[in-house]
C-alpha cells in the first residue's frame, strides 16, 4: 500500500478528529465536550488547508473555534451545571437500536457520497473558470471576495440582515423582567 506523505498526515488528523468527536458525544462533563469540540474544529481547519481552501481554514479558526466555542464555554460556565443524571432509557435497548440505525445512516451517506464522486455531473463552465483562476495566479481571497460581491451579493446582504435579527432577538430573549409577578416563569 503506497501512502504519500499527505495521505499519512491526513489519516492522522482524521483519526484525531474522529476520536474527539466520539469524546464530545460520550463525555459526561459538558465543558470537556466543548473543549474536545475545539480540538475537532482545529483538525478540520488543518484538513481544509490540505484541501487547498486556506481562507476557509482561517475562517474556521476565527469564527468556529474562536467565537462560537468561546460563546459555548461562557454559557456553560454561566449556567454552572453538573453532569447528567443517570436515568434509564425510555425504550428498551435504546442504545443498541441507536447504534444500529446510526450504522444504517452511515452506510447510506457513504454510498451516496462515493457515488457522487465517481459519477460527477460535468459542469464545464465552473471547471473552466476554476482553471482560468488557477492559471492567472489570483489569490484565493481575492476570488472569494469578487464572487461574494458579484455573484452572491444577495445572500451576502441577506446574511447581514440575518445577523442583525439574531442580535436583536437574543437581546429580547434574555432580558430580565423588571418585577417578578408572583411565580415568575422563564
Amino acid at each position, binding site marked *: *500500500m*503506497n501512502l504519500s506523505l*499527505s*495521505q499519512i498526515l491526513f*489519516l492522522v488528523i*482524521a483519526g484525531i*478528529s*474522529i476520536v474527539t*468527536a466520539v469524546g*464530545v*458525544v460520550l463525555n459526561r462533563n*459538558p465543558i470537556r*465536550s*466543548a473543549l474536545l*469540540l475545539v480540538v475537532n474544529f482545529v483538525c*478540520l481547519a488543518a*484538513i*481544509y488547508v490540505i*484541501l*487547498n481552501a486556506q481562507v*476557509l481554514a482561517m*475562517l474556521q479558526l476565527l*469564527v*468556529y473555534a474562536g467565537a*462560537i466555542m468561546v*460563546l*459555548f464555554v461562557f*454559557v*456553560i460556565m454561566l*449556567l454552572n*451545571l453538573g453532569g*447528567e443524571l443517570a*436515568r434509564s432509557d425510555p425504550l428498551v435497548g*435504546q442504545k443498541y437500536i*441507536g447504534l444500529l440505525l*446510526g450504522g444504517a*445512516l*452511515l452506510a447510506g*451517506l*457513504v454510498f451516496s*457520497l*462515493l457515488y457522487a*464522486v465517481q459519477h*460527477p455531473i460535468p*459542469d464545464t463552465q465552473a471547471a473552466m*473558470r476554476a482553471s482560468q*483562476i488557477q492559471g492567472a495566479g489570483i489569490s484565493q481571497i481575492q*476570488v*472569494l471576495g469578487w464572487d*461574494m460581491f458579484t455573484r*452572491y451579493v444577495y*445572500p451576502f446582504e441577506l*446574511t447581514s440582515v*440575518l*445577523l442583525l*435579527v*439574531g442580535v436583536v*432577538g*437574543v437581546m429580547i*430573549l434574555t432580558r430580565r423582567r423588571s418585577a417578578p409577578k408572583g411565580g415568575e416563569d422563564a
Partner: protein
Amino acid sequence: MPSIPELCLLLSAVLFTIGAYGVLTRRNPIVIFLCIELMLNAANLAFITFGQRLGYDGQIVAFFVMTVAAAEVAVGLGIIVSIFRQRKNIDVDEVSLLKG
C-alpha cells in the same frame, strides 16, 4: 487507499453520524447543541471537498453556512439560557409542560 477527497467524504459521513447519534441520545441541551455544530461542520467539509474540484462555489456556500451557524448558536444559546436559568439540573426530557 482511496484518494484524499474520497477520504474527506468518508470523514464527513462519519462525523455527521456521530453528531446525529449525539443529538438523539444526550439529554443535556448544551451538548445537543455541540453535536448540532459537529453535524454542520461535517456538511461544511463535504461542501469544501466538492468545491475543490468544481471551482469556488463550495467554499462560498461553506462561508455562508458558517455565518448562519453563528447566528443560530447565538439565538439557540439565548433560548437555552432563558429556559434553564432557574433550574438545578438541566435535562431536555423535563421540559414537557406542553406534552399531551
